């Protein structure tokens, strides 16, 4: 490498490095140390794995995590089921003339913040909300019912929030699929069902995987939607972390939970990739 390219390299490398190191790596190291410290009976901070042990010994913590992980998997699956037909319709069925317009239509709700969108849903769903008003005035319901603050509405909200992150990779991988693959399979004797499972799904697998990883992580780490739309029983693991930091002021415990969230979610993704025989590098490329 000559002097010139070296100089150019540093110009681009240093800001990125500083950003990553100072704002991400360094605080994480600090958190890691914090999570490994525990206040003993004498009131002294000592190195200990007690914070991590707490997660496994205290039922409420790991049960919350388990429940949240299962819900995140469910949300990921539902998001896929909801968005795949949309992506297929936009890329393969509708005339290319309207494709851009439809994609814009899909993106539009995401131009406003998640908070505003969640409040939008709340206006629709709450007891004195729009949907209840219509159902009552059409005499379908006698009196309004509370549609918010339960797991179903929360999951619906999470699916809605995640849709964009699934539909974009799906559209791009379906776009790359030549229609002749579908025709060739049809010509070789495959039914529509077989074409979908043996040709379309395997071909779009990298897109499905990358979309699923993003949706899973975002759902697992979501705080706003479960907090606002979920009921008393839909405690999210992020709320546990929040409680440790803000409510109990136990930063050491909160830091340990943060790391556990990171490790366990990575583990789940790793298992998912192994089970579906997919490759992370291929999915994200």
């Amino acid at each position, binding site marked *: 490498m000559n002097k010139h390219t070296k100089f150019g390299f540093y110009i681009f490398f240093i800001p990125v490095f500083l950003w990553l190191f100072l704002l991400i790596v360094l605080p994480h190291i600090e958190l890691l140390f914090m999570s490994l410290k525990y206040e003993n009976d004498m009131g002294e901070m000592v190195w200990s794995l007690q914070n991590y042990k707490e997660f496994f010994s205290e039922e409420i913590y790991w049960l919350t995590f388990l429940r949240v992980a299962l819900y995140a998997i469910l949300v990921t699956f539902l998001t896929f089921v909801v968005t795949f037909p949309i992506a297929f319709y936009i890329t393969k069925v509708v005339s290319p003339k309207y494709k851009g317009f439809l994609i814009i239509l899909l993106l539009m709700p995401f131009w406003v913040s998640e908070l505003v969108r969640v409040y939008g849903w709340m206006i629709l769903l709450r007891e004195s909300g729009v949907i209840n008003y219509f159902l009552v005035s059409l005499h379908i319901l006698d009196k309004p019912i509370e549609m918010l603050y339960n797991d179903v509405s929360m999951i619906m909200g999470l699916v809605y929030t995640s849709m964009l992150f699934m539909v974009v990779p799906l559209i791009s991988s379906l776009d790359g699929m030549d229609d002749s*693959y579908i025709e060739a399979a049809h010509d070789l004797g495959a039914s529509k069902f077989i074409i979908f499972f043996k040709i379309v799904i395997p071909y779009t697998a990298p897109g499905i995987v990358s979309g699923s990883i993003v949706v899973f992580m975002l759902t697992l780490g979501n705080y706003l939607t479960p907090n606002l739309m979920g009921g008393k029983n839909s405690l999210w693991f992020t709320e546990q972390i929040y409680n440790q930091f803000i409510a109990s002021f136990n930063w050491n415990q909160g830091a340990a939970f943060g790391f556990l969230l990171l490790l366990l979610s990575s583990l789940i993704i790793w298992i998912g990739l192994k089970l579906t025989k997919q490759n992370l590098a291929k999915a994200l490329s």
Partner: protein
Amino acid sequence: MNHSLEIKELKKSFQDFKAVDGVDFYVEEGKFFSILGPSGCGKTTLLRMIAGFLEPTSGSIKIRGDEMIGISPNKRPVNLVFQNLALFPMMDVGENIAFGLKRQNCSKSEIEEKVKNILEKVHLGGYERKNVSDLSGGQKQRVAIARSLVLEPSILLLDEPLGALDLKLREQMKIELKKLQHEFGTTFIYITHDQSEALVMSDKVAVMNNGKFEQIDTPENLYANPKTSFVASFVGETNIFEARLNEDRKSVLTKEGMNFKVFLVDEKIQTFCKLFIRPEAVVLLVDDGMEDMNYFDLTIKTILFDGSNTKVLANVDKSDHEIMVSLPQNRRFAHIKEGEVVRAGVHVSDCKCYE
């Protein structure tokens, strides 16, 4: 005679546009049949109707006597080799070929056996576990053909599969395809815009233009006795003169003012017509005096050397009308130089007149 495919009065319109406008033909069992035409002539539409991807507006398609209208592509005994081959990239060679067999619920051992046999037949023995993306263009071609032929279809349809190959490979694959067709004995229907592909490989060629067949014939006949001016100009190289028919209806006067004794292909010609002369029909350095020959002077302009396919560009008589003449490579004409004037002749039967 056993007909593999019989098509009657087949029509397909897209709104006002008639893509296929009344096509009638049949293909005999085990023949190599080509449909040759310029792009946009409707040949792909015709092929897609035979494969079942398009419903015809009207008409009938019979395969081995069975009516095919209304039957979906996965239930027809025809297979299509796509222009871009459409080999499934997420499967290896063996899985690609086994795809159709699995749909027929063959047993595992039977599938393995058939895949192995067909790969050997297309000279790719032992390639089962290779990745499709690791194959060369010609190998992909053969896998695509094997994938279709392993299902033992009544008819194999080929949609310009050689289009994406480079010239040298294309020449090889032409011969290879012809050989494969012979070995398997399957009826091939091949569509192309490349006349040399059609002529080299086919038993019969249909020339298509504007949704209609202009002529269905053997390659030899198509070249030697084209029935319409479109066929004459589309198949093979040719020189065209604008002309008017003389009173005797046996000769024409060209725009350049030359008199040619001609053979009238189209009896309906009134006055104006087109005269077609093939480059190899012109004989150089001939002696005058034969009864049924046309004679003229040629001023050699350029010699286009191309090995056995060498041609000269020359002006006819004193005009600036340029014609192409084949130059046999037997060294007899080696002394001909640019700018020279030579005597040339054409037999009457090689001067064909069309509307």
